[in-house]
């Protein structure tokens, strides 16, 4: 920082006082922002764990339903709700995953760079912004008002499809973009037709990324509450049938019990259900990340 050895017109001085202060303020600002952003996750987790941990460590929590249990009584579990949540999410995935992957294949392998692809891509963006309550109302309008069918778990799954589809499609699309063109060309050079190239070469190469998208999509739909409120009634007993009009689910288990007094045993079950839901969703997220990390294709 000495100016003695250089041209006297150039001065290598420290930045002036006001500039140093501004720089320091900016540094403090970004650090405070980062600390603020990190706090909520731990705060939420701390709250849910301290209030719900005791119950989920019992075996009855995972093996029994809430049938015959009133808010004033201890006991019962969340088995019915876990079954319902997982079942509805799986039915949703069975529809959303093939549709999402095929849509992404259309965008990248068949229509890349065309106006049609831009239009479809725009619609996918819009779909990813559709609020869950609107998706639920749409299925209500289509299924219950127009087709005259009753409320059911399947209707919930269909509403969830609208929410999961863009997640799967976008992540598949990103992965297909990363598959090297050489792989496709090598396959074509061997005389393999396009569709077989896609199924046997492109999709396997992108498989890790696609699974990541599926996991993230599942995690998203499992935590959704709005479609459950509108399209199915909450059941306290175990029910495997997706066509019946009542089914338990973790979000509705929380929603049904949240209004009761804090001293009642039922209130603790609300937090235990919240912790169960967080555990399932977080596990799916961590799994998605692990798959993404292990995947062969990396960005650049």
């Amino acid at each position, binding site marked *: 920082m000495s100016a003695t050895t250089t041209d006297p017109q150039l001065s290598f001085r420290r930045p002036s006082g006001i500039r140093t202060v501004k720089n320091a303020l900016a540094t403090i600002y*970004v650090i405070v922002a980062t600390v603020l952003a990190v706090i909520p996750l731990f705060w939420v987790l701390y709250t849910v764990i301290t209030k719900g941990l005791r119950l989920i460590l019992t075996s009855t929590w995972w093996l029994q339903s809430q049938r015959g249990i009133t808010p004033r009584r201890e006991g019962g579990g969340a088995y019915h709700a876990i079954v319902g949540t997982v079942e509805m999410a799986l039915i949703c995935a069975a529809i959303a995953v093939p*549709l999402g992957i095929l849509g992404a294949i259309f965008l990248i392998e068949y229509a890349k760079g065309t106006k049609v692809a831009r239009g479809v891509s725009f619609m996918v963006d819009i779909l990813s*912004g559709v*609020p869950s309550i*609107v998706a639920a109302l749409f299925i209500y*309008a289509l299924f219950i008002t*127009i087709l005259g069918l009753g409320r059911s778990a399947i209707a919930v799954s269909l509403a969830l499809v609208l929410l999961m589809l863009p997640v799967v499609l976008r992540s598949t699309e990103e992965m297909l973009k990363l598959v090297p063109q050489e792989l496709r060309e090598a396959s074509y050079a061997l005389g393999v037709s396009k569709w077989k190239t896609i199924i046997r070469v492109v999709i396997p190469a992108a498989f890790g990324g696609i699974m990541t998208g599926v996991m993230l999509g599942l995690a998203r739909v499992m935590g959704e509450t709005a479609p459950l409120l509108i399209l199915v009634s909450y059941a306290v007993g175990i029910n495997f049938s997706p066509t019946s009009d009542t089914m338990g689910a973790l979000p509705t288990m929380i929603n049904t019990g949240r209004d009761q007094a804090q001293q009642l045993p039922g209130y603790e079950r609300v937090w235990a259900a919240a912790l169960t839901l967080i555990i399932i969703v977080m596990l799916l997220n961590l799994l998605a990340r692990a798959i993404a990390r292990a995947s062969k294709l990396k960005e650049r």
Partner: protein
Amino acid sequence: MSVTDTDATERVEPEPATAEDPSVSGVVDHSPVSLHSPVPKVVTHRAAVPATIDHAEQAPRGVRLAKISKTGDRIFRSLATTSALAIVLLVLFVGIFLSALALPSLQADQDNFLTSRNWTVAGDQLRFGIAGLLWTTVLSSVLAMAIAVPVAVGVALCLTQYLHKRASGPVSFIVDLLAAVPSIIFGLWGLSVLGPFLAPAAEWLISKIGWIPLFSRGVDPKGSVFVASVVLAIMILPIVTAISRDVFAQTPRDHIEAALALGATRWEVIRTAVLPYGRSGVISASMLGLGRALGETIAVMIILTTPSVGGPFSPSIFAGGETFASKIANNASEFDSPSKTGAFIAAGLVLFVVTFAVNAIARVIAERGGAKS
């Protein structure tokens, strides 16, 4: 049928370049030597390759090229196209079906749909309007955006410009994981933990600037729009942070180094190189966050205190209220008559249109801007 007319081979062997299309593989020779030809001469690398190869004749003896069936390709292609079309139709159907069911109730509405605050949908006389819902929805979402965006930009700057890669990884991970927490849990936490925690701050604000209608005393400080906005801000923080981070990380190294070479401090580098480059990305991310906040249902429904029917309207952020989404979800069990359902679907339709517009604007801004998220 020869192999050349399948899609597969078209990709491997492009048509030989012609004079009209110098971009394919030719080098245009503009040198004055070629005086004899009036048009620029094109030197192609593939001049020797004929337009079509007849494998039956040109393949070496003993090599048999099998025919490739196009049927599989055709089926697969139409499958993919159908899926894409189905997605487009799905979005259009959302708009069409919601409109179709909302229309009869809108026509039967005795009040002005846009300016009325009534919500009488039982019985024959329909009197409903969205003024109150619209106010609470927009107020809570804009407030959430105003809280979340400055924090998200700060975090994104910290992650890309300040922290070492080894430290920024875990921090990004924690912020991303925030997006995984289901919204009902945010609602539960917001009502029972954050609401009481923020109550003193709300009290202080009311005592200082309570004379402004926006900050006047509401009914229940715990179930206020203010608490809902803070929770919404936490919920949209991950998406705004993630997009801003990606955009800032793409700032050209040259711009940053040029600023550093001119003696800029770290903040000046950010102000002159990073922020201008990422501006459109940040705006687009904020709009996406706004779209999320507008449509958020269950967290808002749990936190907000529903005002009593016919009570006085309070524009304050410390009052309760109902958003489009929370109104619909709150009354989900009452969808019994078509006219009643239609009124709620009309509210849902407005929400759909608003989020559609916000998301479309976000996309246009992102596309106009240079940086890709």
